């Protein structure tokens, strides 16, 4: 069927393509700038500044990052461990809580839902929480502190509760009960199997939060060997800034010996790498999960 070319439609289409292209380029631009900078010779950056295309190519930045690989790899290890353990642990607790809270025959579900929701409305604030963890739980400089506080958020529990409610028919749980299945068995055998898209979405939220976390390290970790990757990067950035300023102030040219600018950018790429690599695969689930959430909401 051929629709008559209507008024404005063509110009609208052209405009839409142009605007979307422009915005997409703006979103991509900083990434290109960092990649380019990480591949540029340091002297070139110091002399001429950052460019979109390297003026003088060099892998020196990456070589610097991996000259003493123990620290980077260690930080990688800490981040991978906390991300895996935190995501799995968090998923286990969140799905269980979500399952119980949506069970119609669980009498106190509204009371407990509000108990969880209320923490988003009012809280003690950062400082009492900090003192709780350092003074009363004594978790400073432990791996546990990197994992435990991030296991659950009210938002994720509520998201999971709503998802299970819409994904698992009530009758199914009823009939399983009649067949003599216990509550945990129903959760394990039925609910988990039917809620996979929701689990994927919540899992991604958790994993992303753990992977990008620098805040917990900054508050509770003093021992360098337990730094998460992002906080390690943060410290390297600040240290190099310091080296640069010292060099400039004292007239000693430290800058030429240590390729700080290109190393910084190489470091940033090394830290972001896995996400950029995984992104195309992961993004699909994220969009799907958000889409489901939005339509249901």
């Amino acid at each position, binding site marked *: 069927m051929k629709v008559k070319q209507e*008024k404005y439609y063509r110009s*609208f*289409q052209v405009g*839409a393509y142009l605007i*979307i292209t422009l*915005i*997409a380029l703006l*979103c*991509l631009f*900083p990434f290109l*700038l*960092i990649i380019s900078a990480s591949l540029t010779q340091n002297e070139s*950056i110091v002399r001429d*500044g*950052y*460019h*979109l295309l390297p003026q003088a190519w060099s892998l020196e930045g990456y070589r610097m990052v991996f000259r003493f690989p123990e620290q980077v790899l260690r930080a990688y290890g800490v981040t991978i461990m906390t991300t895996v353990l935190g995501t799995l642990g968090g998923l286990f607790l*969140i799905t*269980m*809580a979500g399952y*119980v809270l949506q069970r119609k025959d669980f*009498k*106190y579900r509204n009371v407990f839902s509000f*108990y*969880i929701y209320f*923490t988003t409305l*009012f*809280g*003690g*604030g*950062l*400082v*009492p929480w900090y003192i*709780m963890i350092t*003074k*009363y*739980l004594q978790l400073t400089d432990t791996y546990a502190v990197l994992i435990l*506080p991030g296991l*659950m958020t009210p938002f994720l*529990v509520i998201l999971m509760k709503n998802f299970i409610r819409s994904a698992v028919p009530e009758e199914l749980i009823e009939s399983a009960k009649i067949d003599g299945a216990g*509550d*945990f068995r129903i959760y394990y055998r039925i609910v988990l199997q039917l809620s996979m898209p929701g689990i994927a979405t919540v899992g991604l939220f958790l994993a992303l939060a753990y992977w*990008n976390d620098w805040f917990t390290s*900054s508050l509770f970790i003093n021992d360098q060997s337990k730094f998460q990757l*992002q906080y390690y990067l943060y410290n390297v*950035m600040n240290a190099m800034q310091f080296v640069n300023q010292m060099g400039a102030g004292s007239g000693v040219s430290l800058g030429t010996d240590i390729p700080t*600018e290109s190393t*910084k950018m190489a470091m*940033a790429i090394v*830290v*972001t790498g896995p996400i950029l690599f995984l*992104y*195309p695969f*992961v993004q699909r689930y994220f*969009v799907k999960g*958000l889409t489901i*959430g*939005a*339509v249901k*909401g």
Partner: protein
Amino acid sequence: MKKKGFLHELVTNRVMFLMLLPALLFFLVNSYFPMVGIYYAFTRFDFNTGLFDSPFVGFENFKYLWTSGVLMKLTMNTLGYNAAFIVLGNVLAIACAVLLSELRVKWFKKLTQSVMFLPYFISFVILSVIAYNLFNYESGFLNTALKQLSMNPIDVYNTPWIWVILIILFYLWKNLGYSMVIYLASITGISDEYYEAAKMDGANIFQRIWYITLPMLKNTFVMLLLFALGSIMKGQFDLFYQLIGNNGVLYNATDILDTYVYRSLKVTFDIGMATAAGLYQSMFGFILIMTVNYIIRRINDEYALF
């Protein structure tokens, strides 16, 4: 029917209680216990003596925060930035979602959507690297470009007002993809029949967007708006801290309650003051949400948060 008490319920549904227990404990320790610590706000806190042995000073901390003008400045900044985030963020996301939904080339649509979502995935530490790369005085991309056009370089890191714009731009950059996907999902949910009928009646593309698409997005918009209002006193700590850090020159234009509290804890160790500021933030936010919720309830029950 016999009325059954909590104990009976506990016994019959013990497995479910057991399954819920970790979550209840988690929020008890992580959220409810720290509420007791609000007491610090009324003390001159000493880390060694613990909760109830620090000298009680009443409202002294609050008085100081109030008379020094800190509280006023922080409140204005926090509310101002959040208002800008909410308004501009939603307008941009809706505009992009509408445009994107009208594109006909499938691969282009997918590709651009992915690219716009990408910034959401990177950490705020990387964001600070990006800002440094773009704006640092000696070698930043901006000043390099300005020099090539033989214009004077700008010392961005010492110019507070620029950061008001930059923080908002970085926020938009990072969050556009996320909220756009949500709007895009609602647009996909609109039935084609509306558009067909409008076409029959001779509505052009702008009229179709104005009279069909936008009104249909109202539900999603209100939902996102309410969520955003709920956390309007908690502002994007990572964003501000990673972009500004401890650069005191910029505080007047960029300090929000979260960054102030964090600095009081980590840099100046002023526990009593930091708790007071945190409590003020919590109370203010709480009252704000309650008021908003009450008003919404009066207007339209369905949209109320709780």
